């Protein structure tokens, strides 16, 4: 009997003990639920700065530095980094990282800003309008790189839980991007700066006037990109752009200086391995025209000369090229504190020159705009005034009336430096400068029969993880190959 009582008493003690444990534990679990390493609420300005910064960092990303810069014949990288210059397509992992980088940087964060500024308890249409501009730049780059990409459903893994986004045609993407920019410009023209990002705008320090010029210039770039694909829309959009303020001088340029770690990414490319050497194609162009930007874009080699590397050499020819001793990238582009550009006034002037020729059939006006573009580009790179005057007097700085489109195209290619990705898109669209077909035995014809690649492939990971949507895009757009042109590429 005693034993049983003991047992019962002990059981009660245990039961009460366990009960107390339960109550204290339940509270304890709640305390541990929240992640102590991050916050659950934040002002969207912190995400806006992240998105903007990613956009600038993206101008030196894998797609730009490892592919576009070499496709557009600005330079050649050494060692195994050179493979894309041989027009090969065995770059599945790179294609995947380029697609991922395109979405995970500026798009991921700007989509969150769009969500927070439109649906949260405190909607803000000014911030929303600014975010749309950044979003357009983010999506424009991925569609220019791949062609059809997810757009209406893209980048919405968090905001709308879309894990298998549908692909949109490049045509529909471009049309919508132009509408978004138009809306943003309309809002920003009359907006109160206090409603924008007074303390977190890394580009214009909350100067909405400059933002309008920026957005409108981006709209002009997109409009001109449609020139051969949808001429009507291109022309009407250009007209609209000309009725709003555009970027006119370097103070309107959209640039950023990255100082983290070793600073500007091109600094690492110049000083690190595999190193980059500037192309014969670029040096010949600058040298033959006495272009003062030669010393800006290209460094002298050890002999005090400008010596370039030929693009597309076979392995054997490359081995004999004395690569290690050729000219590096210019210090103005590749010092730790060098600027990274997303859009410049020089590009804007040259777009206007092309538009004047194409849509107004006004060579005189085109020449004025063309010269302005060159002058502003020289100013952007802080070329001496005397040198500017000298170069502006040279035949290069005046449209000849014979090959005006090519002249504008070449100057645009130079002015886009170091935004090499845009340089590649520009050549794909206009065909200028003319990239020679690779027929020599010394040159690799790659997977494209010696023609400059037109796009990046959808990666096998994307083909596996978003299969039916990407297959639909391929059936619409053409084979998943690097020589399949994107929609706006008609040349």
């Amino acid at each position, binding site marked *: 009997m005693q034993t049983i009582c003991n047992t019962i008493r002990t059981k009660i003690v245990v039961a009460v003990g366990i009960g107390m444990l339960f109550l204290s534990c339940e509270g304890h679990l709640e305390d*541990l639920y929240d992640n102590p390493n991050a916050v659950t609420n934040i002002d969207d300005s912190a995400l806006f700065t992240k998105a903007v910064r990613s956009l600038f960092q993206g101008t030196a990303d894998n797609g730009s530095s490892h592919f576009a810069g070499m496709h557009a014949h600005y330079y050649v990288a050494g060692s195994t980094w050179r493979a894309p210059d041989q027009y090969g397509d065995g770059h599945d992992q790179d294609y995947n990282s380029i697609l991922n980088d395109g979405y995970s940087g500026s798009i991921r964060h700007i989509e969150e800003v769009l969500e927070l500024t439109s649906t949260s308890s405190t909607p803000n249409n000014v911030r929303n309008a600014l975010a749309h501009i950044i979003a357009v730049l983010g999506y424009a780059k991925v569609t220019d790189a791949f062609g059809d990409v997810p757009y209406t459903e893209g980048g919405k893994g968090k905001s709308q839980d879309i894990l298998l986004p549908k692909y949109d045609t490049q045509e529909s993407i471009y049309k919508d991007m132009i509408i978004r920019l138009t809306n943003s410009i309309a809002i920003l023209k009359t907006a109160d700066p206090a409603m924008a990002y007074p303390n977190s705008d890394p580009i214009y320090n909350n100067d909405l006037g400059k933002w309008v010029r920026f957005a409108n210039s981006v709209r002009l770039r997109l409009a001109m990109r449609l020139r051969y694909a949808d001429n009507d829309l291109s022309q009407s959009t250009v007209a609209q752009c000309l009725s709003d303020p555009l970027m006119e001088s370097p103070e309107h340029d959209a640039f950023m200086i990255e100082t983290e770690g070793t600073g500007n990414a091109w600094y690492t490319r110049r000083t690190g391995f595999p190193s980059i050497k500037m192309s014969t194609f670029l040096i010949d162009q600058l040298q033959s025209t006495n272009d003062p930007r030669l010393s800006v874009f290209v460094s002298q080699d050890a002999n005090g000369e400008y010596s370039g590397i030929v693009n597309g050499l076979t392995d054997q020819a490359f081995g004999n090229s004395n690569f*290690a001793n050729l000219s590096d990238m210019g210090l103005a582009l590749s010092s730790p504190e060098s600027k990274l550009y997303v859009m410049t006034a020089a590009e804007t002037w040259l777009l206007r020159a092309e538009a004047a020729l194409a849509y107004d059939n006004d060579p005189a006006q085109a020449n004025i705009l063309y010269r302005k573009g060159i002058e502003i580009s020289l100013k952007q790179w802080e070329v001496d005034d005397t040198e500017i005057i000298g170069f502006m007097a040279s035949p290069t700085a005046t449209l000849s009336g014979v090959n005006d489109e090519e002249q504008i195209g070449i100057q645009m290619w130079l002015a886009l430096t170091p935004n090499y990705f845009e340089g590649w898109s520009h050549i794909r669209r206009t065909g200028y400068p003319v990239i020679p077909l690779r027929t020599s035995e010394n040159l690799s014809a790659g997977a494209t029969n010696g023609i400059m690649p037109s796009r990046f492939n959808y990666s096998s990971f994307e083909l596996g*993880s978003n299969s039916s949507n990407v297959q639909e895009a391929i059936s619409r757009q053409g084979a998943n190959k690097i020589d399949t042109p994107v929609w706006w590429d008609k040349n």
Partner: protein
Amino acid sequence: MNKLILILAVFGTIITAEAQKTISGRVLEKDTNTPLIGVSVLVKGTKKGTTTDFDGNYSLANIGDNDILEFSYIGYSTKEIAVTNQTTINVYMDINAEQIDEVVVTALNIQRDKESLGYSISQVSSEEVNVARENNIVNSLSGKVSGLQITQSNTGVDGSSRVLLRGITTINGNNRPLVVVDGIPISNSSGGASGSGGIDRGDALSDINPDDVESISVLKGAGAAAAYGSLGMNGVILVTTKSGIKKDGVGISFNSSFSFIDIALTPDLQNEYGAGAFGDFAPINANGRPVLDYPFSWSWGPKMEGQTYTNWLGRQDTYSPNPIKDPYQEFYQTGFALSNTLAFEGAGDKGSFRLAITDEDGQGIVSNNTLSKQTFNLRGSTKLTDGFSVDGKMTYITSKIKNRPQLAEGSGNTSLQLSLMPRDIRLDDVRNNTVNANGEEIKWNLDNTFNNPYWALENAGNVDKKDHFQGFISANWDIDNKFNITAKSSIDYIISDFTSYGATGAQAIENGLGSYRHDDNKSSIWNSDILGTYSTSISDFNIGLSLGANYRNEYSSDKNIWGNDAKVPNFYRIDNYKNSFSSENITKKAIYSYYALGQFSYKGYLYFDATVRNDNSSALPQANNSYWYHSENMSLLFTKLLGINSSILSTGKLRGSFAKVGNDTNPYRTQAVYNIDQTVTLPYTVASISGSLPSFDLRPETSESWEIGADLGFLKNRITLDFTYYRTNTTDQIMAVPISGTTAYSSKVINAGEIENKGIEAQLNLIPFDSENFSWDLGFNFTKGNSKVITLNEGLESISLGSLWTASVEARPGQEFGTIYGNDFLRDNFGRKIIGDDGLAKRGDRIALGNINPDWYGGFTSKIRFKNFTLSSLISAQVGGEYYSYGRGYRLFFGTDARSLVGRESGIIEEGINEHTGFVNDSPTSAMLKQFTDIFSNEIATDLILDATNVKLREVALTFDLPRKMLKNTFIQSAALSAVGRNLLFLYNAAGDIDPEATYSSGPTSTAFEHSSLPSTRSYGMNLKINF
């Protein structure tokens, strides 16, 4: 059941016939006359009893002539002796070898009779882990236990090991069994590098000191482990360490091991062609050195025939084969491992204690890779009253490992560099030319994924220090002979301090700027248990009921600082770096649980166990954070039930087990957060969102498993056979599913998918000879298991579980888990390669090329004892399974591999058909172009998939027990000297010159990839055990 076999014996003579008297006596081991301490002496049918003291003496008052005394002691046959008219009863107890095997340590450290268990369990004794000693104790289990698969990574001293028990059940989980040391669940995460480099910082299992181990129980399957909750989902390895026992002499024991470690296997390299490309030397640069970029820094130059040429340093030299063919033998050295353990122990009727100190030192085959580790272990228990006892343990392990080697694609991977170095280069030149006048590294290749191996040895390194505390306090209260309460609180606490550095001047290290890193980590697992047990017997039924509660708290805190751009060379403090960064991270998780256990047995032949458990985890959303599971185990001794007692079938048991186990996940996967970026670029707040999307409605994942098996003993148990079939289905798996990058995210945590894991295990033991002077034990174990992916998330075709270069190991619905995918050659419908006009094959589709899972694996053990000599050996075998060797790929296209000699002069005509004509290809291509195009440009993996089948002589130990006669007049009680060897050689290795275990990490799918691993090693040495 041997335990119940009663051997009655009567000693002494009748003296008187008093009614009540005092009985005293001594209990000794039969044959040796060693006094046995702590033997339970009980008056049968009463609670009256005592235990023997240090000298084996006991005394009991008020005993009647009709009483029966019961003497019981684990490991010995129980004796019952009728008192009759004796007053002195001396007892000689028989060692019951069979019984030792049968008492096993099970979940919650409950000692059970093996016969009563409904699930499969294997027990390994201390000799099996501390004679042929391994730094990481799990390596000693390799090949010894069916269902247990151990892969020892090739990552330098103190590397981690891949441990799988009955294969893989979860996609994202680490699939490692729970390791419990004396009831303390310890951290058990895998380690290692990635394909792009890094080091292996080892796993916590290497902190289990083999010399302190008493026994290891391997509890397979969830049925065995439900008592540990979800942690035991992949089975449990229970390690019981030595607690003090009374020994002969003064109770001091000494165990010393020394072994050499040397290179066992290296890749076959050619020694006929040196640096250059297309059969020519490299062009000479303006600086007088050859072009050191690819492809000229490869070994596709002219044949080495004593020509004069400009060598890699720009000096005129003779171009001739290397006099030392194997650069590995020249670069690496013979390492060693030394360990000494001194233990003091004793026990009395009030308690026991053991104090042990172990010192371990070692050096790997890389000369600067050293280990120094000390273990202090204190274990003690005492009886405060007859019914109340406390037990405790404190272990402190301090270790310092220097220069864990860089692996895989890491620039400091010395093996990668040695294997790719052009064959004309002399290692002496490399050693003597590491730095130029400007302080820059001198290399034979510009590529920044390479260092000069000697430069790396001197200028890049790391120090990994760890202080590890383990301890518990437990109390046991026998309220009466039916009701018992135990409470236990244990902690596993690790402080680690890791620094790594790279000097300035090497392109591979921050473009010459130099780097420094310092990581501080603290982690703890705190477990508290309370368990009440009530046991009773009602007629033929024995019933045990337990109620328990557990609280588990995990905490981890990391602080990291790193910097680059050194201000002053060769000075490694964060202040010395122009750019410095830091981060900190804290994770906490708690689980509290309640459980009930029931044990029922009927007449000693039918046993039934059941477990119910409820877990509540902070890692799951509050609405779903509570989950239940249960297990049922049954065991039937049919020979006893049917009264079979034949000499042919001696024992027979059928068992079955079912378990349903829930599982939670890592903390903080159910909440959307913003991280604050550390940046100096912008004067604004910058925040970012992680690429992994959380899930707000995560549910626990569920694993249902069952097993059936039989244990049969023939010819008086000279032949025993255990056989088990198991199947586990894990559903609602919690995993971070990789998602299309176009979502702007890389993965999302969801519940999805099902994996089915099933297999058979068998263990056969034979004792062909068993006599006083000669005995021979043979053991075979066999496991055939298979994990299949039944479903993944809808719309998801594949989850990549890891990748190297362009090969990946994947989970795809309908396929075996761990299928290796890679690019194949382009082929026609008949499987023939399609060859271009240039004679080169083309890239085809990405297909399944292999699978990491063996068809079966097993081990063969033999133990021969002749007088005082014992020879034990272990051979392990794996049949089937594949892996991808990027190391071989590298060596092939760099032209250093012996296989790259094929077609050097004549060219290679690929087997296949011409893409245009359809005729058999007859256009030759150069060997260099073929290797480079296939492997590098076209990323074709087919030829780099190797067969992992191998048979390895894993362990040989010859032990000589010094005869007692020799020790008679010394203070030494016993001594044994062993010569041991581990991983001695491959009896068969399908891949030839690569070790299939040479992985660079130890995760579940780590065996899929090999990349220029350190040479495999073997060890051989001596072990000495002395008891004073």
